[in-house]
């Protein structure tokens, strides 16, 4: 599609534009564009400039530390890492998912719904609503949650409260809002007391109501600009994620399903422990992030998207009524079997938010979450794979241990890595269709960030203060001279420093 823009034929005499760092995403990434004399885009790339080497770091540690250790990978979805690692180490003590005590399974699911709910709410309200409500090329001073709180106070407050609710679910189950403990090998370390359960029940109906309202809002935004929303940054891709055995949407445990751009099945109900037989990762010289692809389709065509868009596209239905109704509308808005619009990620994300709220209510009303049979134990094994649907998509944790219980090998495929090719394609689509040939301005360049932000990438799984990311834009001519520069300070203030 736009792969010809990954590497320009001849990079001499091209102007280089750098968007560094990409703001309002988690972690540090940058976009570079090479433009010819007519401002036509010849090359566009999203680079990941941070590298943490976590897989090396956990080698040599006892495996039971993993669920707590790996939480440090990410400040936004630590629970997903915690649970993916926990699912892997369950196997190290000989416990397969079907043998996990019922209460432990439900408590972990409750914890994870809390995580996805809070992460999705954070992304929509804090990171993306400014673009969606004020326009992609709006004045930069408007592009923050503060501006949203000013113009749409109710909505802003809902966003803050929804995020807080998700954090409270996490706190009740794991002891802390962030980086708590819950899962241990073969189970969990506590159940909910009645008081904790009742506390969470108090606000759940409000959460469902607000989630439903946010789905209605995004639908309105999307459909009132339909041609634009269906085209902007849009790419036709394969989709991958977990589903339940009956094909329903699943966030905690299921088999791997991948569908192609026409909705045809590539693989289905694959045991994720065998992911290596289906997915490989390619390394490219210009970025730290790898490029995973489906083996059967090869490097060129085997890349796929993960996350809310993939999950809502892939599943046959959603097992909670309001989210299912929203899914049906979502699918009906497009006349294709799969919704390819990159901006539809937002819509799908809010459908999932609603599903989380409904599911939290169901679980809170289930006495099993107050049960006492919490841990199971089996025969020791030397290898474990845990896969979960993190807020940003399918997350793989794979470990090997020695006879002393020490980790000897680890492999992680984080969600954002799976979306690497897709994000690059979306950046190139926007560069080619919306920027090429124009005089570049900061608002215009925000389009690139809007495209990336739709994926809600967690570029380094590092925590950054929201809305405080500095942005620097440099325009460099063919001789390498800086001809223009825009700087957004962490305070949000913008300046064009004099240069020369």
């Amino acid at each position, binding site marked *: 599609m736009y792969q010809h823009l990954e590497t320009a034929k001849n990079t001499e005499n091209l102007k280089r534009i750098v968007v560094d760092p990409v703001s309002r995403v988690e972690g540090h990434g940058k976009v570079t564009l090479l433009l010819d004399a007519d401002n036509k885009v010849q090359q566009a790339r999203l680079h990941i400039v941070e590298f943490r080497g976590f897989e090396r770091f956990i080698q040599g540690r*006892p495996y039971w*530390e993993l*669920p*707590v250790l790996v939480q440090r990978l990410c400040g936004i979805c630590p629970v997903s890492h915690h649970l993916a690692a926990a699912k892997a180490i369950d196997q190290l003590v000989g416990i397969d998912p079907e043998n996990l005590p019922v209460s432990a399974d439900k408590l972990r699911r409750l914890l994870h719904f809390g995580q996805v709910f809070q992460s999705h709410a954070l992304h929509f309200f804090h990171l993306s609503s400014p673009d969606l409500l004020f326009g992609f090329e709006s004045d930069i001073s408007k592009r923050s949650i503060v501006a949203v709180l000013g113009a749409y106070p109710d909505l802003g407050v809902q966003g803050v409260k929804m995020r807080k609710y998700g954090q409270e679910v996490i706190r009740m189950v794991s*002891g802390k809002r962030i*980086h*708590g*403990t819950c899962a241990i*090998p073969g189970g969990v370390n506590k159940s909910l007391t009645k008081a904790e359960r009742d506390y969470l029940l108090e606000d759940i109906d409000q959460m469902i109501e607000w989630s439903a309202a946010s789905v209605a809002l995004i639908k309105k935004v999307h459909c009132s600009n339909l041609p634009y929303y269906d085209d902007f940054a849009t790419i036709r891709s394969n989709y991958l994620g977990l589903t339940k055995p009956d094909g329903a949407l699943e966030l905690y445990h299921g088999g791997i399903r991948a569908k192609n751009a026409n909705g045809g099945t590539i693989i289905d109900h694959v045991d994720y422990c065998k992911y290596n037989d289906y997915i490989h990762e390619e390394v490219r010289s210009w970025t730290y992030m790898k490029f995973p692809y489906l083996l059967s389709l090869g490097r060129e065509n085997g890349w796929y998207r993960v996350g809310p868009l993939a999950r809502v596209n892939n599943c046959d239905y959603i097992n909670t009524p309001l989210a299912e109704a929203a899914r049906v509308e979502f699918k009906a808005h497009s006349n294709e079997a799969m919704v390819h619009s990159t901006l539809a990620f937002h819509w799908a994300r809010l459908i999932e938010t609603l599903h989380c709220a409904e599911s939290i209510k169901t679980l809170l009303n289930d006495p099993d979450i107050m049960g006492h049979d919490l841990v199971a134990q089996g025969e020791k094994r030397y290898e474990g794979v845990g896969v979960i649907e993190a807020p940003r998509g399918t997350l793989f944790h794979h470990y090997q241990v020695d006879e*002393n219980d020490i980790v000897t090998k680890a492999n992680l495929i984080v969600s954002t890595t799976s979306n690497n090719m897709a994000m690059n394609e979306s950046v190139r689509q926007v560069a080619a269709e919306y920027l090429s040939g124009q005089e570049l301005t900061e608002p215009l360049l925000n389009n690139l960030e809007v495209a990336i932000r739709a994926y809600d990438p967690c570029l380094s799984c590092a925590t950054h203060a929201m809305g405080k990311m500095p942005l620097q834009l440099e325009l460099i001519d063919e001789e390498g001279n800086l001809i223009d520069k825009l700087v957004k300070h962490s305070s949000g203030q913008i300046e064009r420093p004099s240069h020369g």
Partner: protein
Amino acid sequence: MSKSITIDGNTVPFEEGQTIMEAATAAGVYIPHLCHHLEFAPHGSCKLCNVKVNGRVCSACTFPAMEGQEVLNNTQELTDDRQKITQMLFVEGNHFCPSCEKTGNCQLQAVAYHLNMLDDHYPLFFPTRKVDASHAEVMIDHNRCIFCTLCVRASQQKDGKDVFAISGRGLKKHLIVNAQSGLLKDTDIEATDQAAHICPTGAILIKHTAYQVPIGERIYDHKQIDQVSLEKEHDQHGK
């Protein structure tokens, strides 16, 4: 009439043969400590129990109580010194509390909170130290050893074994185990030994038990170390 000393101006009785630490504990006065344990002969290595006795700095855990002593314990100067000592203990090893399974139950961490230690202050050494997980039930993470010798003393004096010793000096100081191979699996330690449970940090651990106690039920979740320490040690010392 019983004999007495003063601690921070308050009269504290003592019995012949008691250390300042023992007299203080019996009277419900907390003096921060890590290498002291009421069941073992004092070792005097961590220096956290530094007090001023008639103007001179001494270790309360080793110094005998004597008539006429005016002891200063809870002063800003001593707290500052103790904080520095704790910071040095942290930077000398690799103490990553966020992922350590002893967090919430660790005396080193608890004493650091008690002394209001907010950062490491000194540059971290990042020493290269090993994990010995060779034993089926007990493991040593050398990264977290502060050389308090409690395991050494417990193994000798309570378990009737001789599993641990400290070897080397200064920066080369390290914990060794009594086996040709140098591995814990070749010693006679058992998970029921007191030596396997006495470590004030997360250096000696019982395998497969990590994180079983939820947040909120760990030793230091609701009480500071002074309170925990006095509740545990007060009675025994009073006898």
